[in-house]
């Protein structure tokens, strides 16, 4: 495809109307379209004028007027004379006509209308049951007036004209005509126009005297056949940038499958917690079960590599000790903290903890499963750290307009010494203000792995109400201390879905129109670039 669908008005040099106008103007300074081009339909005149005017070859003024047109009946009168005249003529010719015979001479219509008028005009009179002549000579005024209307399209006697309209002898119609004068670039002939500047024209110098075709500035340009990124990923990019600006390191989320241990137990979600119902969690039937937690060199190396810079930067002169993780101890600690609280200041859930249950494989229900493994790694060398991830999670939901069995979770984790709950609020205020959401409110909530837990509410001006925009909290000591993190290290966690803010922000009401194979390609192609701070 080339060229716009609505480019410059095409110019046909052989257009005879336009050329005729130019020719006429050569001899006559002012034209009137109604007089000079009476047989050319108005739209053609207008099109020709626009072409010429857009090139400043003519100037024109539009005249709106009403004109009277004779009906077929009136046209017959102009041809044959009025009904009364026809009656008078017939009587004059015959000398005497019986009234009942009159229709045979002039026709039924003229006989009915014409005799009355001929009496009124004292042209004829009754003699017994016959008609005889009164006036030897008559003037057919009606015919004369109608002929005048036929010639001039109007009549000076407006009252009479209206009378004719009532008698259905004339009709009125709106007429557009134009007064046409020469324009500043008038020429007797249509000039040759070029549509575009070409390399050849520049080389030959021809461009200097070339007459360029005018451009239609009201039209769209040519479509770009552009590629596009998915709107949800564009929002994801905004979030990632936001996290990077705030000093967060991305977590390795490259496994959809996790063990119940990492997805639930390590987060202090008890084995009988309702979230672990088959109603909410996808369990895996094959492979049958997970191994106990153990070192994962590939993931560890990845994290070591991407954190190497930060370590060097902050190492300064202190020599930091790194205590390797003891997975066996971690496993035992988790068992203890569930069963009786272990040595972690808790009374525990006081139930009998099943290893088999902990080794069941699930599709991860949250990326917090990954955060847990990353925090466990942090216990090797506890230091302030910030991590984030944005990746797919799975819930065994019944699919509807707001629920899919998979969606993206945006999650941030901040570990530091001496963190306070108000600090988390302050941080979240800053985080969400960068998405254009100010004035957050925090609602106490329940979450098995955070205490305190806070639901984050933002005011949605469009909906006119407070909406929940995310979840947050401080991870429970029962989750952190079994990892070996020191008691005075506290960890914020916060999360939201990628889909929900995108749907709210862009007015998408059905999640299936945003994620999955049913998304309309037109939506992907036309969705504007995303700037969360600018709406």
């Amino acid at each position, binding site marked *: 495809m080339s060229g716009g669908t609505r480019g410059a008005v095409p110019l046909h040099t052989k257009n005879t109307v336009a050329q005729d106008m130019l020719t006429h103007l050569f001899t006559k300074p002012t034209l009137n379209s109604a007089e000079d081009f009476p047989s050319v339909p108005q739209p053609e005149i207008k099109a020709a004028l626009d072409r010429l005017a857009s090139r400043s070859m003519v100037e024109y003024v539009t005249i709106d007027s009403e004109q009277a047109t004779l009906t077929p009946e009136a046209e017959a009168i102009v041809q044959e004379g009025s009904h009364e005249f026809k009656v008078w003529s017939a009587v004059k010719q015959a000398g005497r006509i019986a009234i009942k015979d009159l229709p045979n001479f002039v026709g039924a219509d003229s006989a009915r209308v014409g005799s009355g008028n001929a009496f009124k005009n004292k042209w004829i009179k009754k003699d017994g049951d016959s008609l005889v002549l009164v006036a030897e000579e008559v003037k057919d005024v009606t015919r004369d007036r109608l002929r005048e209307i036929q010639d001039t399209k109007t009549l000076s006697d407006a009252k009479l004209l209206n009378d004719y309209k009532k008698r259905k002898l004339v009709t009125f119609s709106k007429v557009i005509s134009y007064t046409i004068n020469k324009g500043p670039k008038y020429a007797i002939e249509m000039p040759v126009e070029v549509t575009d500047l070409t390399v050849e024209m520049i080389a030959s110098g021809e461009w200097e005297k070339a007459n360029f075709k005018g451009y239609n500035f009201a039209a769209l340009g040519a479509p770009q056949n552009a590629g596009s*990124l998915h709107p949800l990923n564009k929002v994801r990019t905004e979030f990632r940038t936001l996290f990077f600006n705030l000093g967060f390191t991305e977590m390795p989320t490259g496994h959809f499958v996790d063990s119940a241990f990492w997805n639930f137990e390590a987060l202090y979600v008890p084995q009988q917690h309702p979230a672990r119902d088959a109603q909410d969690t996808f369990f*895996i039937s094959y492979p049958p079960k997970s191994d106990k937690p153990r070192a994962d060199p590939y993931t560890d190396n990845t994290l070591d590599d*991407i954190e190497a810079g930060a370590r060097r930067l902050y190492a300064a002169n202190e020599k930091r000790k790194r205590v390797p993780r003891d997975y066996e101890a971690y496993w035992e600690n988790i068992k203890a903290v569930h069963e009786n609280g272990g040595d972690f200041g808790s009374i525990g859930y006081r139930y009998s903890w099943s290893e088999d249950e902990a080794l069941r494989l699930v599709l991860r229900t949250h990326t917090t499963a990954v955060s847990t493994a990353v925090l466990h790694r942090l216990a090797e060398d506890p230091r302030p750290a910030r991590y984030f991830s944005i990746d797919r999670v*799975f819930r065994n939901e019944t699919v509807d307009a707001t629920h899919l069995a998979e969606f993206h979770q945006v999650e941030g984790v901040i570990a530091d010494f001496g963190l*306070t709950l108000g600090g988390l609020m302050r941080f979240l205020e800053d985080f969400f203000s960068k998405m254009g959401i100010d004035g957050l409110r925090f609602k106490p909530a*329940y979450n098995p792995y955070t205490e305190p837990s806070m639901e984050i509410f933002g005011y949605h001006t469009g909906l006119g109400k407070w909406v929940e925009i995310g979840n947050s909290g401080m991870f429970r000591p029962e989750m952190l201390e079994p990892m070996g993190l020191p008691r005075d290290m506290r960890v914020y966690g916060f999360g939201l879905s990628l889909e929900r803010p995108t749907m709210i922000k862009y007015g998408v009401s059905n999640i299936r129109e945003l994620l999955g194979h049913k998304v309309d390609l037109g939506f992907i192609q036309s969705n504007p670039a995303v700037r969360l701070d600018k709406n």
Partner: protein
Amino acid sequence: MPTISVDKAALFKALEKEYTTEEFDELCFEFGIELDEDTSQSKKPEDLAQPPQLKIEIPANRYDMLCFEGIAMNLRVFLEKEKLPKWTVTPPANGQPETIIVKEETSKIRPLISGVVLRGIEFTQERYDSFIALQDKLHQNLARQRTLVSIGTHDLDTIKGPYTYEALAPEQIEFVPLNQTQKMNGKQLMEFYEKDKHLGRYLHIIRDSPVYPVIYDANRTVLSLPPIINGDHSKITLNTKNVLIEITALDKTKVEIVNHILVAMFGGYAESIEAIHVDSPHNRESRDVPNLGPREMQAEVTYLNEVTGLNLSPPEISKLLEKMGYTVTPSSSDEKYLDVSVPITRADVLHQADVMEDYAIAYGFNNLPRVYPNKSAAVAAPLPINKLGDIVRFEAAAAGWNEVMPLILCSREENFDWLNRKDDGTTAITLANPKTVEYQIVRTSLLPGLLKTINSNRHHAVPIKVFESSDVSYVDLTQERKSRNERHFAAAFMGKTSGFEQIHGLLDRIMAMLKSAFITREEGLQNVKLDGYWIEEVEDPTFLKGHSAAIKLNIGGKNHTIGVFGILHPSVLRKFELS
């Protein structure tokens, strides 16, 4: 989260204030419950037909707010209208507590029992309804659909102790179930209730067991067949004065939580709460239940203040914690600690972190000092695979292709059969319990998603050019989690022609942007140290014979096959309804 419906007028009367909907919503927000709906603002006929209700969402761990009584009580305490009541057991008038004797056979099916007697209770229709509804909520939530715990309530004046908790063969148990007139045995009962909407879903808990749990009184009257149904004989009515509650369970902790909640919610309507003696020597569970004493724990003053960012004195902290139902006194042994009595209603309190949260709620979350946490800067870094993935995505889009995001879960057919690929049953991760039938496995290929996307966009002008860069997952038994994700890239072209050269061109473009040179097959095979890629014909049943190519890459001194492309086989197109 459970949603509890309470009578608006009655609740506001209990709170001694006529709240506007906004004011009450605000109160709920501060306390950490959520006003879902005020039906006085509803126009639905079913809402207009009854007095206005407030539908309140309760956090999943607050079993003490699952009924009107609990919501009213906790809010009154929060608003400082009263202090949380202290519940105590009263010795029975005749000095002899009711006794339940547990038979050893119960260990085979449902080993634990607890209970309580509420004497001199005064039921009204509202209280009675609330009592039934609370049991139902506890059965649903804490008791996990009666599997872990189940409750039976009886008119004490219709039965005679001591009671025995036994486990017998279904045929040996015979009684008239609640609200029935026919006597039936355990086996018949299972058949009778099989189609029952309400009870049918609980039958599986014991149906296939050789013995069913059952509670008898001294006259061999059946009290109940837990966790299914009570006997009709001892059913409670509005006129019941003395109630015996029995609670059977698998879980030792939860059985006492349920007992505590029932006592705390309804003990207030009774003249006295009497303990029951459980005689269960075989599993060392002989004891008097319930124990209504609060749980004593300690909380560090500095911890409470540090995490909340507050700096209040122990008396001030204690006053705030009373609003949440605790009784708190500065520790007699160490001034750094507070002695905290946790009432029987607060089973959710496990750690001083829970006390700290209540301290913050009592102070008001939104009143806490907000201090930016950044004491130490951090360094940002992207995950390498995501950075690489983004480069490929941007280049594909810049080349005029459109990014799509199909789902990761799909059916076996789409992933294998429809692509003419063999399913050996051990490649893909298989879901055990999907609610939606087409979610059977985790995809091992991006191709089905692309083809399904094109299928839903058949109205779109051709050519359609789509791509995706995302993860697929494979079974990998060497991994701890027995699986492995891989980041893949895939693109599909649909037009009036096959678009083979379009896909090939996109490949060339992306390889060029990844700094990989196009080399000839001969060069590549001759010298594996020569970095670069080439394509060569390959047979792949997904594609039309003679029109598919393998993508080969030399990198780091090794040769890899990194992908395949070609003209999709007409049978594949037919399966995805693209022909």
